[in-house]
């Protein structure tokens, strides 16, 4: 470890760098000011010869910390891959020559920009080390799957097939969960390819639910241990070393260790007692889709009879979207996604038994997506199920009949139909635990009143499922409507609790086929998580990063900012209220580092110093030079690529700005802002990702945390007697190729207007 640091710099003069800039001057800056004992130039550093030049120095033991001054750190990543040494990169191509107009008039300031980037990269590299994992990791291949429904059983079986043992925890006496009452399932497949006779033959039919088969696979699998009537009463630890207390009905509790966790607790049927307008609860002949499925299962192919009088059902109405897609109190605002095909299937039960039975589906939009969905819709039409575009408003029970009042949307008139039975297509309510942020809200509420309100909100929350022994609450954070999720478009499995992956209807409403497919993906992520934990590597999106938060305990004031702000709930507190970082729960965003007021948290390759020393290395000309200095801290995920691509498209930026990429705006330490102001910077621009409900921050809350912290910067500026305009925080998207440079140029104009900072030395 503690081998001597050998610093070396490499300057590329290709891609026009050599023509646009004075390379001798760059070399001199790197040597004299950057204090790099060895600085070499090459006309094409990324080519085989250039790479060899660097590799030879590394192999000869002459370079352990290297500074590469060439293109952006986003370019030529594969060429400049030297995993055994620490590396910083000065962005002379995109960051300087492509961002600046050519010509003598601009030469001086453009060269100064490049000189500064050399100084900055030389300063940064001195404070970096090659990350090494803590060495405390072990490979624990066992998965915990919570939920004994079809989703959970699928997760268990698929993990076992890949060679990973599983403990499957089911809170009921039998496996199957909400799916165990299925008489048949909506077919998993579309119509087969090469069947003679055209498109309308052999359309998919309701099929065996496959429950018994799956249970058999689970029970027969030597890699799967099933716990019935069991609950998780405590979960602690981190990926690779989770520990869970599994309590069974008998009162016995066993503690098992796991590498990762899949939560597959499915859904709870919607409580139809909130639908009195449909006579639910006043007559047994109005059933929910879930209740009707049980009835069909009991009938098992025999005549389906009315619960009230045992009469054969000769007409049935299915009311779609019952208590769903509605803003009424007690209704679900979302579409549950599975009910259209479910109703078609249930209508076909009647048709299979008695083609004369009148089965009508009242719908507004019939939602049967994909190939299998649309084929099944056609199958229902072929079975002569009636599809009526209509909005049901009431069900009235009278004289043994049910009258369904509805607006026929095709004929545009209010009408009604009489039938024997009504099935309400009700929705799925996610079976998740309480939102941890609802729990934290109680702790964090500033006033007693707000505390009381937070407690009241929590009182109606569901009981915990995982009972996480985490500083930030007992369960997975919710995204919307009680579903757990985060980046649900690009990275749908990334929950905000590392190593714990949600599968099935806890993520979003879905049918059985989707839930079982979803279980496979979540299991994949869980396996990946425990494998990476064993290597000491971060989870998404920084897989391969071996750095983790190091912490100087002597300096810690136990202020708890890090444990509160971590977007992933990774940090616990010990008995003395010091933070415990749980490195394999950490996603390496650095939000804890940014939160820490006493600067005791750092990463091997990213720290208060690696950035702080860069901004201090910049040459700040005096007040009368007319050359202000603007510091830009740009999120490396969106804002920094936007600036790179802006340069690539020929957008110019002020030569007075110095851009430093940060892992996430959440990692920005306020000390950087105050240091910059104290060192005479005239303006500071912070660029992070969108942070509202539709957030784009890759670390979920990092950008929001930063914005909150930085909202107090105005006070600092006022104390220093500086104009508040000198610090600006912006949300910048990766597509802001015109706007991002414009923001920097506007800051330069602002400085021209309000004048230079008086803090120059």
């Amino acid at each position, binding site marked *: 470890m503690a081998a001597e640091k050998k610093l070396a710099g490499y300057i590329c003069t290709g891609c026009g760098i050599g023509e646009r800039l004075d390379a001798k001057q760059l070399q001199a800056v790197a040597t004299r000011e950057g204090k790099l004992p060895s600085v070499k130039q090459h006309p094409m550093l990324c080519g085989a010869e250039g790479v060899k030049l660097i590799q030879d120095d590394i192999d000869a033991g002459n370079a352990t910390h290297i500074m590469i001054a060439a293109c952006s750190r986003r370019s030529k990543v594969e060429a400049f891959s030297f995993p055994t040494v620490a590396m910083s990169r000065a962005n002379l191509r995109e960051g300087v020559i492509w961002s600046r107009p050519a010509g003598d008039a601009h030469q001086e300031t453009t060269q100064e920009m490049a000189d500064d980037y050399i100084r900055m990269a030389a300063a940064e590299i001195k404070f970096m080390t090659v990350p090494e994992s803590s060495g405390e990791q072990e490979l624990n291949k066992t998965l915990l799957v919570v939920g004994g429904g079809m989703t959970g059983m699928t997760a268990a079986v698929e993990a076992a097939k890949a060679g990973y043992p599983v403990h499957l925890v089911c809170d009921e006496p039998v496996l199957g969960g909400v799916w165990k009452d299925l008489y048949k399932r909506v077919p998993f497949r579309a119509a087969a390819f090469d069947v003679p006779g055209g498109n309308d033959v052999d359309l998919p039919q309701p099929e065996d639910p496959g429950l018994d088969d799956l249970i058999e696979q689970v029970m027969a699998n030597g890699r799967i241990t099933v716990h019935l009537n069991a609950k998780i009463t405590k979960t602690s630890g981190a990926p690779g070393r989770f520990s869970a207390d599994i309590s069974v009905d008998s009162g016995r509790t066993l503690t098992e260790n796991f590498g990762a966790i899949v939560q597959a607790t499915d859904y709870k049927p919607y409580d139809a007692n909130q639908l009195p307008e449909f006579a639910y609860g006043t007559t047994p002949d109005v059933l929910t889709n879930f209740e009707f499925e049980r009835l069909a299962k009991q009938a098992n192919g025999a005549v389906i009879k009315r619960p009230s009088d045992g009469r054969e059902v000769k007409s049935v109405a299915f009311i779609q979207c019952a208590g769903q897609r509605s803003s009424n109190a007690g209704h679900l605002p979302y579409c549950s996604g599975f009910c259209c095909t479910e109703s078609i299937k249930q209508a076909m039960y009647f048709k299979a038994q008695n083609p004369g039975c009148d089965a009508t589906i009242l719908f507004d939009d019939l939602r049967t997506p994909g190939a299998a969905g649309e084929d099944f819709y056609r199958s229902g039409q072929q079975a002569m199920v009636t599809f009526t575009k209509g909005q049901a408003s009431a069900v009235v029970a009278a004289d043994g009949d049910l009258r369904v009042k509805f607006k026929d949307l*095709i004929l545009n008139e209010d009408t009604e139909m009489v039938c024997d039975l009504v099935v309400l297509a009700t929705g799925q309510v996610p079976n998740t635990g309480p939102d941890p942020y609802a729990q934290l809200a109680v702790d964090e509420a500033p006033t007693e009143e707000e505390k009381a309100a937070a407690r009241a909100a929590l009182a109606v929350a569901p009981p915990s499922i995982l009972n996480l022994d985490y500083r930030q609450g007992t369960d997975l954070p919710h995204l919307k409507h009680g579903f757990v999720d985060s980046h649900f478009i690009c990275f749908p499995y990334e929950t905000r609790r590392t190593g714990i992956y949600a599968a099935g209807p806890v993520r979003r409403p879905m049918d059985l086929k989707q839930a079982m497919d979803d279980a496979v993906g979540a299991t994949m992520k869980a396996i990946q998580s425990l494998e990476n934990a064993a290597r000491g590597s971060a989870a998404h*999106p920084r897989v391969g990063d071996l750095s983790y938060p190091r912490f100087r305990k002597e300096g810690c004031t136990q202020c708890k900012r890090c444990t509160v702000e971590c977007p992933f709930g990774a940090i616990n507190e010990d008995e003395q209220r010091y933070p415990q970082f749980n490195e394999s729960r950490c996603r390496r965003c650095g939000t804890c580092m940014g939160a820490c007021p006493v600067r005791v948290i750092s990463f091997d390759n990213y720290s208060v110093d690696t950035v702080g020393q860069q901004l201090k290395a910049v040459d700040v000309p005096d007040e009368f030079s007319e050359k202000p200095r603007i510091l830009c801290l740009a999120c490396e995920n969106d804002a920094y690529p936007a600036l790179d691509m802006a340069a690539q498209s020929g957008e110019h930026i002020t030569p007075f700005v110095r851009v430093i990429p940060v892992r996430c705006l959440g990692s920005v330490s306020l000390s950087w802002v105050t240091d910059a102001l104290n060192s005479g910077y005239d303006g500071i621009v912070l660029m992070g990702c969108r942070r509202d409900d539709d957030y784009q921050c890759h670390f979920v809350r990092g950008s929001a945390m930063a914005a909150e912290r930085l909202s107090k910067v105005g006070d600092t500026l006022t104390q220093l007697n500086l104009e508040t305009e000198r610090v600006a925080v912006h949300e910048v998207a990766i*597509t802001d190729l015109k706007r991002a440079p414009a923001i920097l140029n506007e800051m330069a104009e602002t400085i021209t207007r309000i004048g230079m900072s008086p803090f120059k030395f």
Partner: protein
Amino acid sequence: MTAVVATNETILVVGGGISGMTAALEAAETGKRVVLVEKRPYLGGRVSQLYKYFPKLCFPTCGLEINQRRAKQNPNLTILTMAEVTGLAGDKGNYRATVKLSPRYVNANCTACGDCATAVTAQFDDEYNYGLGKRKGAYLPYRMAHPARYVLDPAIIGTPDAERAKAACRYDAIDLEMQEETIDFPCGAVIWATGWKPYDAAKIQPYGYDRFANVITSVEFERMADPTGPTGGKLVRPSDGKEAKQVAFIQCAGSRDRNHLLHCSRICCMASFKQCTYVIDAFGADARINVYYIDLRAIDRFEDFYQKVRANQNIKFIKSKPASITQDKDGSPVVHGVDTEGYQRFAEPHDLVVLAIGMEPAVDPASFPVPIVLNREGFIEAASANGGVFAAGGAADALDVNRAVQHATGAALRAIQVVNSVARAEV
């Protein structure tokens, strides 16, 4: 000769769009060796051609940047672009893949400086922009293309343009002698993620896509809305460049149709809602939008987005599968049909008609290298008869991006199950 290090514990991923990239990265980040084969010169597939995602209206390049960074940094992943799988011999756990590599005429020395593009003169239809714009004969397919390496159009080889490109390059990156080559290597499992293609709109004869300039497809409209696209983000009529303020979206164009695709393409309703916001953003109160539909399929949580769009007074929803489109004397497309809610006939002129075009699986049964189980719509069905070949994303069903990613993640596990059993990975 391109060399690929692989064994029968290697996973081959065919297709480098969002599904293939996801499957490849998830497997590689679990420690498996992966070879990713992509037909185009760059990764990202159709997702890279989208301006925004629904329902967040965020930018696909944001997630793509992360995925590209993951790809650049992962030592387990080998990426072959301009490559197509032409053969697959053997069985589950023990395949040998044959891959044809088309010449790029640009080697790894390329720094993406752009000098070759400046030097050449010939122009070609830009396939990245669905032919709505032109590109040079030496080009970077789009700004964020990965690999960030230029491509020479084969049509300029042997012309003075090729020599000009070569002369302009200071890094010896242009190799006009580059030849097509065929390589083969072992692999244990295959993830087939070739995605989808837009249904050929010209086949929907009554809509006149091939006759009327102002009838375009949803994928073309997406390029038009992109500020880096062929119109600089301006929503205009292709016929005369005038602002397209009155826009019709025709749902199920080619989908749910006995004459075309039988299936529901799933994404088109949400895509049209998203594109409605482009028109509203561009023209505010002056925007007039008609959405013609059979069913509005804003499944599950997407309902929120639908309700938000629905609340806009300038967007009308008409339950109708339009019968035909004609063109009036101003070149405005006129949509004819019957509003089935109340049975009213209509003939509505618009500045622009956008066909919410269906997704056709990009799976060719005739050239598929092994026997494969397809469904009637041409998507690959999961079946044990497929051996160690697993479909991911759009090759398996009409899926939106998040479902494609979800599906591809699962496909990675299926492949890992095979290679782990090859490795006899014991617990």
